[in-house]
């Protein structure tokens, strides 16, 4: 639980209230974490070094074939590593998981075509033809219309929302099945808690996502260490929330304080453990690997 919530307008926290209001002390509401990131970064600022955690995390309103409001997350941080090095770390872990499964279950086999890395804008170009400079909401709208793809967006949304639509409903479904694909160097406007750096063709977020086939497994950052910029991003999120009539949430002031005291340069990644279980057991739905999905919780 935390007094601060995630400010990300696309992620909704659960607010925790006592069943019956008892003492005075707990009248302020707390939130269930949507990832252990804020608390772990406070530990990193306190000098914890390389750390990992496996825990339940909670996201309101996310339920479906690949989503459950409560799920298991494995998150770890490596001091001094770049995101490209961290991707290697993940490849090693996944390869170890596969061999361990084979040792435990001799008849177990897991077919995959290996690991592949591609930059966000290159993937978009390959599968839609859009170059970074040709992207606009009008151009995306026209692209979808020409292909008869139904789209609920009306033009009032940000370019990022249009990109989310394009990636989720056009690009990702075309990713080769049975391949681990790292997508990296995201648009700078989708940096979240990642550092932004100047690449050869403009600023990008030093962030990556990992997919197996079309299933998203992990999200990683080269972490933003600037507490002032992080605070500005939180406030900007809160303003977007206001404009979209979403719940107003307090940001994590402890995290900002910790970042201002100094976060060592590091990369971090969060992997959905249930999704990994789903992939390794060859199931088509997350619900197949959960003992008690939300409908039966």
């Amino acid at each position: 639980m935390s007094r601060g919530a995630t400010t990300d307008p696309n992620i909704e926290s659960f607010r925790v209230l006592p069943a019956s209001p008892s003492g005075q002390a707990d009248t302020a509401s707390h939130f269930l974490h949507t990832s252990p990131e804020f608390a772990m970064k406070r530990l990193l600022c306190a000098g914890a070094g390389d750390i990992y955690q496996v825990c339940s995390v909670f996201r309101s309103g996310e339920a479906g074939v690949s989503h459950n409001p409560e799920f298991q997350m494995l998150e770890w941080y490596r001091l001094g590593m770049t995101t490209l090095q961290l991707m290697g770390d993940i490849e090693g872990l996944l390869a170890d998981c596969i061999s361990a499964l084979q040792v435990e279950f001799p008849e177990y086999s897991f077919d995959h075509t290996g690991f592949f890395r591609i930059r966000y804008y290159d993937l978009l170009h390959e599968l839609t033809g859009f170059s970074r400079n040709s992207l606009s909401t009008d151009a995306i709208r026209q692209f979808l219309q020409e292909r008869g793809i139904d789209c609920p967006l009306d033009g009032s949304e940000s370019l990022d929302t249009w990109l989310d639509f394009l990636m989720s409903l056009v690009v990702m479904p075309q990713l080769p099945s049975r391949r681990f694909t790292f997508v990296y160097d995201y648009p700078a406007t989708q940096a979240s808690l990642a550092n932004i750096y100047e690449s050869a063709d403009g600023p990008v977020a030093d962030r990556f996502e990992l997919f197996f086939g079309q299933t998203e497994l992990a999200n990683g950052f080269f972490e933003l260490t600037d507490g002032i910029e992080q605070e500005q991003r939180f406030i900007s999120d809160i303003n977007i929330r206001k404009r979209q009539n979403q719940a107003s949430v307090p940001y994590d002031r402890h995290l900002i304080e910790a970042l201002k005291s100094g976060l060592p340069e590091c990369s971090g990644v969060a992997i959905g453990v249930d999704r990994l279980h789903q992939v390794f057991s060859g199931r088509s739905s997350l619900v197949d690997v959960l003992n008690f999905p939300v409908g039966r919780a």
Partner: protein
Amino acid sequence: MASYSTNEFKGGLKIMLDGDPHTIVENEFVKPGKGQAFNRTRVRNLKTGRVVEKTFKSGDSVEAADVVDTDMQYLYSDGEFWHFMDPSSYEQLAAGKAAVGEADVWLKEQDMCEVTLWNGEPLSITPPNFVELKITETDPGLRGDTATGGTKPAHMETGAVVKVPLFIEEGELIKIDTRTGEYVSRVK
């Protein structure tokens, strides 16, 4: 006006789209870990039967379609309309060809049917899964031939044509699965 949020979406939910009532056939929640969530659905137009893909921004609301399924007794057809009665209120209503569609060949007087109403008007008729109908015309039966597995066409009292085993005789009552249009058994 009633409406549904996308987080209430599930198979069978009735919603209004482009002025027509639709039912949700499939609903999939699509969301990147960080980014906008969408509900990708397949919906069936209840007037035309056409199934199309439709994507919604998660959190958006859609107008609910006032569509209800009621059990009603089929009374008779006057050639233009098919008349049904609510067995508890004795209220009657008439459904035209557009609503009855292909179901007309399974409608037997007194049988209970499912009548789907949209704003109180009949939208579609679903006959019972199994009906018992009398054969009005078929080739003479091959008595005792229960082994060869051959079939022949038989005309029913309602106008339906059903493939029946060779041993079935004209005038017999048979049970039919209306979902497949197939013969099930003889009715003794």
